[in-house]
């Protein structure tokens, strides 16, 4: 049997592990081309196949032979004819597939060669930087992870001008990552080695706001969510007061692009979440759920990751109608489980619920995607038969946000929430809002509150709570029988309720 345990200088291989094909192909290229990797280099232009092999060999050489990495890089510069595209794609492959197994010296080399690729503006460098950012683990305060975080924040500061000129949007990604990480880094106490990282993170983020505010705004509405978690940090309070608060209403209108939600989800986590929500049947999901928990969520510092996962599930994983109609685990079930996990910690629970409903608050049916609000809607509906307290607590939470969440934006929120509720009915995510409005399992004051909220749009959108006609209804309801059970036969007259509503200031704000 071939013994590959100690032949790789790139990764740590454990006993009983299949050989990694990427590592193998790099190592084989390095071994077979070794004579050509030393000066004097050939002046001949290599054949296309040899060009690729040389790139692989050089990647392996740079990462595994720190002492001759300068030579390898020189060789690369002399050789390259594709704007470093293939070389960079190999580095991305290594970060995505092998990073956790890399030996320490290879990680150091990886950062060095990344800087080198920034200097030459390699094709794909933006993706390489993003893949590195995704490698900073949440709630992991081990030396390796703190080191990576520190290296990357330093890299963005060091290469600021170059990045700003060539790929400004990668700075927006960095801002998102480090704002999010800072919130965690402030939450954890007694980790001395974080102090320096925090200082650098603040420096980078503040620089971004002060010098390139427009780039920060590109994050969209999640920027405000991030800043809220940092409101206790004086630097960010100032930024909030000076810059952000006056732009809030514009920022809320901009839906955050899915690229940002990926930043705090590692590739492994993404693979497993996509598998859970694309291949595992509801009912036989328990072991997968347990493995996911064990791998990613154990430990008190990991709890904040739930916020990122909920945003990711709502805003990035949008299952096809085929999957929705199948027995595959739906998103609302995963989110119900995640909410269960954070019940012990009220602060986290609140943040997770806010993450779940955040797009509801600013929902605009012309710009927002119904799939971002669908999980919360279905979780509320499907919980009614067996877990009405969950429906109650979610509905209470979201209605309470109207009064408590940033009072200066109350009008926007009333409008957003109303649109979201209307849209989930109109698009057939739920059959009818009656399922909430007339359900005996829900407290009367809550139903009244919801009816009052919905009345805000009354003049503009004719309400017919009884109407069930929607084209895609069946796509969302895998078992209509259950749903029928949930909805009651008693129909309040919505119009009466609406007339009862008090004069609402938001009414005057709603555009036609």
């Amino acid at each position: 049997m071939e013994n590959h345990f100690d032949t790789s200088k790139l990764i740590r291989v454990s006993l009983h592990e299949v050989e990694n094909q990427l590592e193998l192909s790099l190592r084989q290229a390095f071994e077979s081309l070794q004579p050509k990797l030393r000066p004097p280099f050939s002046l001949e232009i290599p054949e296309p196949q040899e060009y690729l092999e040389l790139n692989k060999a050089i990647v392996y050489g740079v990462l595994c032979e720190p002492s001759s990495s300068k030579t390898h890089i020189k060789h690369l510069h002399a050789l390259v004819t594709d704007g470093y595209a293939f070389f960079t794609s190999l580095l991305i492959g290594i970060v995505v597939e092998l990073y956790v197994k890399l030996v320490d010296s290879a990680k150091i080399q990886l950062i060095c060669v990344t800087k080198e690729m920034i200097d030459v503006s390699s094709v794909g460098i933006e993706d390489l930087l993003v893949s590195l950012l995704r490698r900073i683990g949440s709630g992991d305060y081990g030396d390796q992870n703190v080191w990576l975080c520190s290296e990357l924040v330093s890299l963005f500061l060091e290469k600021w001008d170059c990045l700003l000129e060539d790929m400004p949007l990668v700075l927006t990604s960095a801002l998102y990552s480090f704002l999010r990480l800072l919130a965690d880094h402030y939450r954890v106490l007694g980790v001395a080695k974080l102090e320096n990282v925090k200082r650098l993170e603040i420096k980078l983020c503040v620089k971004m706001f002060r010098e390139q505010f427009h780039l920060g705004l590109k994050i969209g509405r999640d920027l405000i969510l991030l800043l809220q978690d940092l409101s206790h940090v004086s630097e960010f309070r100032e930024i909030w007061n000076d810059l952000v608060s006056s732009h809030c209403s514009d920022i809320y209108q901009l839906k955050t692009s899915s690229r940002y939600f990926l930043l705090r989800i590692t590739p492994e986590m993404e693979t497993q979440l996509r598998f859970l929500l694309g291949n595992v049947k509801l009912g036989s999901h328990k072991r997968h759920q347990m493995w996911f928990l064990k791998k990613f969520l154990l430990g008190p510092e990991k709890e904040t990751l739930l916020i990122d996962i909920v945003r990711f599930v709502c805003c990035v994983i949008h299952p096809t109608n085929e999957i929705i109609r199948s027995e595959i685990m739906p998103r609302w079930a995963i989110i119900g489980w995640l909410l269960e996990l954070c019940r012990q910690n009220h602060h986290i629970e609140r943040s997770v619920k806010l993450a779940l409903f955040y797009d509801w608050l600013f929902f605009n049916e012309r710009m927002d995607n119904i799939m971002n609000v669908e999980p919360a809607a279905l979780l509320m509906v499907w919980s009614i038969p067996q877990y009405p307290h969950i429906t109650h607590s979610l509905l209470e939470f979201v209605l309470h946000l109207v009064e408590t969440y940033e009072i200066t934006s109350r009008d926007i929120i009333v409008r957003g929430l109303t649109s979201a509720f209307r849209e989930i009915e109109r698009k057939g995510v739920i059959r009818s809002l009656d399922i909430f409005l007339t359900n005996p399992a829900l407290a009367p004051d809550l139903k009244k509150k919801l009816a009052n909220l919905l009345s805000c749009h009354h003049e503009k959108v004719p309400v017919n709570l009884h109407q069930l006609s929607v084209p895609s209804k069946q796509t969302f309801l895998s078992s209509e029988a259950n749903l029928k059970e949930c909805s009651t036969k008693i129909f309040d007259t919505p119009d009466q309720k609406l007339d009862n509503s008090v004069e609402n200031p938001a009414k005057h704000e709603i555009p036609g």
Partner: protein
Amino acid sequence: MQLFLKDIVPAAQNNINTRFIILDKAKSPAANGKNCIALAADETAAVHIQLWGDECDAFEAGDIVKLTNGIFSYVRNNGLVLRAGKRGKMEKMGEFTVAFVETPNISEIQWNPDPENPKRYIQSGVVSAYSRIFPPLP
């Protein structure tokens, strides 16, 4: 040839190539300290596997394992188990991404010699739909 678990038949031959995900592992190794029993499965069936020596620590629940030249046969005290044996090997090839079933469990099936070909075994009955050692999660 890569087999699905449902197509594996007991035989005294080291020729089974398959891949499965480990669902559960007995906490402490058996009395002799050298092997332990685990539950594995793929999309078609489940099976008890026997891990030997350092395999016991190398694999965890959730690991996807490639078995080359394995054997499925009776082992004293452990019943009908799939294992690498001296000539085969088990290697971890991934984690998590197998959608599996826990029934039927081919270790919980009564196998008898085929009357037409006594060298082969055929299914003659189901002892238990699910593993009796590792019952499904509630």
